[in-house]
């Protein structure tokens, strides 16, 4: 403790409690490592694969025929913006795991893979029990490619880099492994309330 900038005032919005170091935005900023992948639903597929490479794959119509869910959640980006009350529709990870009939006894973590090559790792426990979904609709309209459409992983209780845009596979793992940002200086877990931004 110690540094004080005596003439700094800031904007002082009164309002909801945000995770440490975050500020409220009503915008929806876009961040990505490269150009936006263009994925058409005709050729889209989503797979859930077990540690030994077995799995289940869904085409877009099959995916949309699964039980659907709507949720309203707050999201927190590691670049410090938070957006409250965001409305999403999609398929919960519980539904997908159930439909695939996967044996989860040796599974501890999951690596999400995306069109374009992005990856991110999440503990299995943080994806089940209603904590996460594969989302295809934001604010009542189909998810825009810039924001990860046609479908992205949504894990709102962790920093938003974990909510992999353009997701196409969840690969079940028997141990944790760093995904893209985790291997590039960011925290393996990423809890905004403990401000776990960097490694």
């Amino acid at each position: 403790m110690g540094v004080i900038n005596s003439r700094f005032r800031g904007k002082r919005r009164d309002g909801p409690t945000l995770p440490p170091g975050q500020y409220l935005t009503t915008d929806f900023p876009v961040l990505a490592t490269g150009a936006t992948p263009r994925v058409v639903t005709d050729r889209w597929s989503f797979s859930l694969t077990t540690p030994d490479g077995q799995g289940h794959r869904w085409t877009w119509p099959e995916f949309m025929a699964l039980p659907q869910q709507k949720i309203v959640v707050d999201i927190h980006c590691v670049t410090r913006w938070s957006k409250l009350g965001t409305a999403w529709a999609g398929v919960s990870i519980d539904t997908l795991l159930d439909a695939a009939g996967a044996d989860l006894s040796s599974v501890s973590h999951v690596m999400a893979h995306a069109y374009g090559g992005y990856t991110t790792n999440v503990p299995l426990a943080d994806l089940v029990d209603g904590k996460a979904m594969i989302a295809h609709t934001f604010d009542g309209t189909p998810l825009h490619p810039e924001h990860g459409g046609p479908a992205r992983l949504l894990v709102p209780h962790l920093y938003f880099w974990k909510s992999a845009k353009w997701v196409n596979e969840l690969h079940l793992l028997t141990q944790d492994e760093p995904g893209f940002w985790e291997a590039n200086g960011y925290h393996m877990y990423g809890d905004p309330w403990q401000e776990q931004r960097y490694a």
Partner: protein
Amino acid sequence: MTTWQVATVTGATMETPTARSIWLSIPGFPGAQAGQHIDIRLTAPDGYSASRSYSLSDVREGDTVAVSVEELDDGEVSPFLVRELEIGEQVEIAGPIGGHFVWSPTSPGTTRPIQLVAGGSGIAPLMAMVRLRETAAPDAAFRLLYSARSPEHVYYRDEFAALAAHRRLPVDWFYTRSAPPDSARPPGRITHDEFLASVIPVDSRPLIYLCGANEFVEMLGKWLVDAGYPTDSIRIERYLAA
């Protein structure tokens, strides 16, 4: 928890009427790669604090770095950094941050030509690369495309003049709102054809670094991909406006 380090402002200069470069001396700073950024945190006397990320515009001196900050109209931190922060004052910083949008003179692939593309304040991290090249890899093939609102909005003007005088860096300038009086091109946003004619051709296998506002990099990134540049040869840093 973020580890905050104490930085002292050792110098500052206005790059444009709304942008300021600030030099920070950070004892114990491990040094940064060109393209990385730091978080700068300000704390008011009552304990209220706010922090934002700023690209480093100079990484050549290990524990003294520079950032170039554009004042945003509704900004929380940038107005203070541009208008109030004094030489000798301290701020807290975290970093360096970022492992993807970096150029290193010694990493594999350094024989590939480098195409830098800047929109407005997006020139900051690219300037860290240009400056580092001068000291660490002067023979590296670099090209810059810089789109700015007007000549008065261009950062590092003296330095670009010196680089031009010594033929150190080919630069394609594009002005979107007002152009110099002797300019052959009227002001306006860069077009698809102008863009592709200015960047290093795909056959030369360049590595491309794009930095600027989201709409700018989204559009240019798409043009590059549609023109056949491999997606993994394109690195993008998108600037937020808050």
